[in-house]
């Protein structure tokens, strides 16, 4: 079920009723946008595909194309103050423009199909559609032109530049065309990273908690309590290190591969925990240095998928080296941790 767009009105254009979105986002839009950043309802946060009007549209108004992930749609919508435009929303299965373009759902076929379905040629006098630049990896502009007669114009990467782009006669500056990965960009991604791995982390914590009770004199629940809490603290620190600290500090961490960046943060975190006397016996301390570094390394490596500049070839090369080392480190770390129960 798609989200309802609130305060929708209608415009009658060439005898057809077309939904018109209000000028401003409302509180519920902002709340929903915040929630999906925490992975809440992220996969269900969609708008109905089709055509929408913004402002006082007529047959000469520009046509902007967007995805049906509501966060994408709202991000575009809120930047259009004072503009009269049509928005075509493609059915990207609730996925943002760039990711959908990678999968091909924001693609040539869907554009041609959707233009036909909304009968765009009857709505506008011109034959131009403006796509977000990041849609380009799913769309062959020349194919769209050949198949439905509409010329594709690639707009800026970010919706906040769209007005500027139109004012300049549909010309984008280099700045508008470049993808960045700023501290803020990384910051808004970390809650999802944190929530997504959470269930695995809780499972592993529970297992370590139970195992913590084992000792040479049998099983003790008191021991499980004291050692278990220590294990949970260390593991949680490892999780924070790989899922939050490493992504945030990314450009300032040593090396190019994400797994190495994650390893370095994890190592430092482990040393800090040791200095705070939170790592237990000498053997367990060594175990934690291995385990925290490797958990952090693994999680940081997984952040390649959220980053905006890693290539598949590069990730494969990184993994060929990192994954075997990570496996060895986990085996050694767990071995020492278990041995620590008996000495």
């Amino acid at each position, binding site marked *: 079920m798609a989200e309802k767009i609130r305060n929708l009105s209608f415009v009658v254009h060439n005898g057809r009723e077309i939904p018109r979105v209000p000028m401003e986002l409302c509180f519920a839009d902002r709340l929903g946008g915040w929630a999906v950043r925490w992975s809440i309802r992220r996969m269900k946060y969609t708008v109905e595909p089709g055509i929408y009007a913004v402002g006082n549209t007529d047959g000469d108004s520009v046509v902007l194309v967007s995805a049906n992930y509501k966060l994408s749609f709202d991000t575009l919508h809120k930047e259009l103050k004072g503009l009269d435009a049509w928005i075509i929303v493609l059915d990207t299965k609730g996925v943002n423009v760039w*990711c959908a373009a990678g999968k091909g759902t924001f693609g040539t076929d869907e554009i041609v199909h959707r233009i036909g379905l909304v009968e765009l040629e009857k709505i506008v006098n011109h034959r131009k559609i403006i796509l977000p*630049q990041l849609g*380009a990896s799913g769309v*062959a502009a*020349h194919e769209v032109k050949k198949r439905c007669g509409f010329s594709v114009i690639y707009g800026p990467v970010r919706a906040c530049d769209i007005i500027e782009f139109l004012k300049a006669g549909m010309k*984008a500056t280099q700045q508008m065309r470049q993808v960045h990965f700023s501290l803020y960009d990384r910051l808004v991604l970390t809650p999802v990273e944190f929530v997504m791995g959470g269930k695995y982390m809780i499972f592993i914590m529970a297992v370590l908690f139970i195992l913590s009770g084992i000792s040479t004199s049998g099983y003790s629940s008191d021991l499980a309590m004291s050692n278990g809490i220590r294990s949970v603290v260390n593991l949680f620190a490892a999780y924070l290190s790989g899922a939050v600290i490493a992504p945030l500090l990314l450009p300032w961490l040593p090396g190019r591969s994400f797994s190495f960046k994650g390893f370095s943060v994890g190592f430092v975190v482990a040393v800090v925990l040791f200095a705070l006397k939170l790592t237990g016996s000498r053997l367990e301390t060594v175990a934690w240095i291995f385990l925290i570094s490797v958990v952090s390394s693994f999680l940081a*490596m997984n952040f390649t998928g959220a980053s*905006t500049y890693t290539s598949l*070839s*590069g990730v494969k090369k990184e993994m060929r080296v990192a994954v075997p080392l990570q496996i060895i480190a986990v085996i050694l770390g767990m071995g020492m941790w278990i041995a620590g129960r008996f000495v």
Partner: protein
Amino acid sequence: MKGQIYLKNVVTLELDIDKCVGCGLCATVCPHRIFEMKENKAVIVDADACMECGACSVNCSVEAINVKSGVGCAVAVFKGMFRGGQASCDCSSESD
């Protein structure tokens, strides 16, 4: 601003300068600005910044650009390994 650079000398991007008709669309769509137009031909000026998204190649009407495009995502590579076949990006289409 110069963008971040990932591993060097790994990308699969190739440009066949003889086929290029100089339309400049590759330079337009590239999110990392690795193409420049010189004397009506595209030139790769910063191959290491390429993330293999495939936008240039898909939009090249004369098929002058070749790149093994895909998502640079470790989770996708794992999924591809376990399920067999290509690295598949589907963390954003999981039904929860």
